[in-house]
């Protein structure tokens, strides 16, 4: 067998193995932490007052414990500006959350609908699965937290996140990733009882509670007034489910929530391929070592046969000459 033939076979074997483990991985199930908390956002209730943004900035610029959970304190006047709101802004390194303003087609393109954006706190976060220093932790309480003390700044979390949530302090010489932690450190230390944005909301557009209860509440609201909401709780199953969920009176795609993400949890996208790594590490050395031995034997044998033939020819000639 020559080298290319062999590589071809190896390729085919790898392909079969990929298909095989992909099926095996489909049996995976993680229901999420059973008693985890989350937030339900109701788009029909939000009036775009930006109080949640202000609450977030206040708590996270004052109760700072680590350099990477620091937000620069902003003047309250910043959050009074309701004219600059639009559909395309996203969070940056100075904020964990942001309210966008949409004018969805579903309401004739004139009436505004608002949506608060922050980390979705996936049950199985893409960022945590992508991070090569384990800087992200899915807390049993529900939030996804970030530990800057190990962060190298590769920004693979930002590549991996389907909602474009993590942001980076590009302007700093010692930069960190920034993203909403669902006020996990503040609740742990007793500074807050629930996320600051939830307590700041005057419209009860945000509801804090156990994820299972929130799902019940969401479906209750959907069922109570037929036709008001779309029959879909965004985050119930998206990317394997999230702890931050949305219900809306207009299609989610029209308020900037992608509906094409599917229900596969992010870690599953790479786990089957990663599972092949040990296979390669075990199989290749044995195969290559074997091939090396075979080529060595083959060369030696060819050499031996050549020498034997030469010796025989000489002996033959000698015998002839001696006759």
């Amino acid at each position: 067998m020559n080298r290319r033939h062999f590589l071809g076979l190896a390729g085919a074997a790898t392909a079969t193995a990929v298909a095989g483990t992909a099926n095996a991985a489909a049996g995976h199930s993680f229901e999420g932490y059973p008693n985890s908390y989350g937030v339900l956002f109701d788009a029909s209730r939000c009036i775009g007052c930006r109080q949640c943004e202000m609450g977030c900035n206040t708590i996270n610029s004052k109760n700072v414990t680590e350099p990477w959970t620091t937000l620069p304190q902003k003047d309250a006047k910043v959050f009074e500006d309701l004219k600059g709101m639009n559909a395309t802004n996203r969070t940056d390194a100075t904020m964990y959350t942001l309210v966008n303003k949409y004018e969805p087609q579903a309401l004739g393109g004139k009436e505004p609908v608002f949506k608060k954006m922050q980390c979705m706190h996936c049950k199985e976060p893409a960022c945590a699965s992508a991070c090569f220093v384990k800087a992200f932790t899915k807390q049993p309480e529900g939030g996804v937290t970030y530990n800057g003390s190990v962060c190298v700044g590769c920004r693979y979390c930002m590549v991996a996140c389907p909602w474009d949530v993590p942001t980076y302090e590009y302007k700093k010489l010692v930069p960190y990733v920034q993203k909403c932690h669902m006020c996990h450190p503040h609740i742990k230390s007793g500074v807050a009882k629930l996320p600051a944005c939830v307590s700041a909301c005057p419209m009860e557009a945000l509801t804090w509670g156990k994820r299972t209860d929130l799902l019940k509440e969401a479906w209750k609201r959907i069922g109570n007034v037929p036709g008001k909401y779309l029959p879909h709780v965004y985050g119930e199953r998206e990317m394997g489910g999230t702890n931050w969920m949305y219900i809306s009176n207009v299609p989610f795609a029209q308020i900037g929530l992608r509906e094409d993400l599917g229900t596969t949890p992010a870690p599953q996208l790479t786990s089957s391929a990663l599972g092949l790594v040990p296979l390669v590490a075990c199989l290749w050395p044995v195969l290559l070592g074997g091939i090396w031995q075979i080529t060595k034997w083959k060369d030696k044998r060819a050499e031996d046969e050549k020498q034997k033939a030469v010796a025989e020819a000489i002996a033959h000639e000698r015998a002839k000459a001696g006759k």
Partner: protein
Amino acid sequence: MSPKTYLQFAKEHPILSLIFVVGVVVTINRFLVGGLAATTNLDDNNPWGIWISFDLLCGVALAAGGYTTTAAGLIFNIKGFRTAIKPAILTAFLGYAFVVYALLYDVGQPWRLPYPVFWSPGTSSVLFEVGLCVMLYVTVLMIEWMPNFTDWVGWQKISHIIHKCTIPLTVMGVVLSTMHQSSLGMLYLIAPHKMHPLWYTYQLPLQFFVSSMFAGMSMVIFEGTISHHYLHSRMSPEYNRDHDGILFSFAKACSIVMLGYFAMKIMAIAGEDKWGYIFHGKYGLMWLTEMFGFVLLPAFLYAVGYRNKHTGTIKVAATLAVLGIVFNRFNVSWFGFNVHLPESARYTPSLQEIIVSVFVVTLIILCFRFISKYMAIFSDHPAYKGHH
């Protein structure tokens, strides 16, 4: 050397000196003055730019000549390949060493680069595998390259010890290359929602690995031609004699691997039924250009060049194949990435980012030139006459 000699050198090589000066200025700006914000066009939506697309993805693929050549010459024991091994190892070593160097520019806290391996390993991450493999492979390549240095300075005992480990080192090199070449493709598996469907497939790891084979071999031909032109006087008669033979062997191998790769790419489209995208819009056109202009055409030219024993055709094919790999890696990580963003939010590299990439390539060439000038890369060291 006195400052005067440096000035003399600068006068003789004005472009090189300019690149060097500008490169150093940008380096200072990146690490000490402005940081990533002042040097790059990276932003929250586009965390990875040309330093990942070109320096990392293309750099690693094009340095694959190290494992392909050593496998052919030492494991498969193909006659006439012995002379190609030393230049290939040198190129791969420099290639990988500078991939790591270029990464220092890109990551936010470069002094923490050893963290994933030694401090807080995130084993569920594909990037962890890439990092670990690249780190180990740079070490393997350094050991494989070391005899050139130890012979040069006369520490032949070390060379002898390393020579004894040649086969295990070579096997390790192939294993590590298989793993990280494929895991560079695996990196993108986690972002199906951001990539164009023509490039996203669960076969990306396999495609990256197979394409790295012909990328490496094409690069050996490509730079072998350049070395032959500029370093001819440094080459021993044996090295000059073997040159064409290696060229033809690699041309034939490339032709076959590229045809296989073409079939794999088509199979991925067929298996996931993405035919509709091929004849649709800008991305369809780019995919067709990549597949027909930079895979099928060079595969065909390689075959013709091999049959007619025409080195010119093969060199054209090698150039096309190298450009094709760059185009492919750009399509996966840059042009075909973040396609859900509006055009205005997409990424274009800044001038300073490009300067760093050019600077890094220049440093590789300078190191290659220096080492092949003073050490026995294109010839056998006098101590080993008749050794092999």
